[in-house]
């Protein structure tokens, strides 16, 4: 009974977060900015599903509401493995009045036995004094990071050690994404610094 209450609470929390972040495109109508939504739902027994998305985008409006979401869900199956990774860099160029950016990683197993589910999200947000766009070289580096992020989550996993390795590899790519954007901004005559926020959660049953 206690477990049932806990499960219900977890379900409600996960659904609320998923609904909140998943609804970002609709909310973005009142604000603006790119959204990077990577969602993988795996319902096939024993299957392996994975996806990664990398985005670097400017926003020059008054109300920035960019969302970066990595959502992996294994549902109604046995032995499923699901990986999702989302990496996003947003540079705000219009001195916006409102900045309500969101970054979330959501990993859920629902009615799923012996399932492994992993989600990683990284968001880099900086403000600049004037419009900046990525050079062809910068765009090429972003594409290369995308390719390697996809390769990371395409690796099979069967233990927590594998997830720790994914974290390390994706954090390295996140640092590379940040460096790429910083380098582009320096080239355009801007300096960039950032504060860091981290949230991490793991559940085993």
């Amino acid at each position, binding site marked *: 009974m206690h477990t049932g209450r806990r499960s219900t609470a977890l379900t409600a929390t996960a659904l609320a977060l998923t609904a909140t972040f998943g609804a970002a495109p609709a909310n973005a109508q009142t604000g603006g900015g790119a959204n990077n939504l990577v969602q993988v739902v795996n319902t096939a027994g024993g299957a392996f599903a994975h996806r990664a998305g990398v985005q670097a985008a400017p926003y020059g409006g008054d109300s920035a509401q960019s969302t970066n979401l990595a959502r992996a869900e294994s549902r109604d199956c046995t032995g499923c493995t699901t990986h999702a990774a989302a990496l996003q860099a947003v540079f705000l160029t219009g001195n916006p009045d409102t900045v309500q950016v969101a*970054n979330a990683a959501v990993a859920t197993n629902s009615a799923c036995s012996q399932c492994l589910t992993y989600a990683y*999200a990284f968001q880099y947000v900086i403000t600049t004094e004037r419009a900046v766009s990525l050079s062809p070289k910068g765009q090429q580096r972003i594409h290369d990071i995308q390719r390697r992020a996809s390769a990371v989550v395409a690796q099979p996993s069967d233990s927590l050690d594998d997830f720790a390795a994914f974290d390390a590899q994706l954090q390295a790519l996140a640092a590379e994404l940040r460096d790429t954007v910083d380098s582009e901004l320096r080239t355009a005559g801007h300096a960039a610094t950032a504060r860091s926020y981290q949230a991490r959660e793991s559940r085993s049953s």
Partner: protein
Amino acid sequence: MSNEPQGLNDAELEAQDGEQLPDREQMSLINANVAAPVNAAVAANVLSDDAVAIANAEQDATIDQSN
């Protein structure tokens, strides 16, 4: 002995201090800038046996605003 409150005498009144309110226009100025980055990681196992869920979210945000 009376329990009724006593008023201030002249010396006490003189000792009271106050400060002039600013102009109404200044009082109505509101800084409307909002900077509210959200970062969250959620991992959940619901009705799932021998299952593992890992979520990791990291955010770097520098938001400079001015009116």
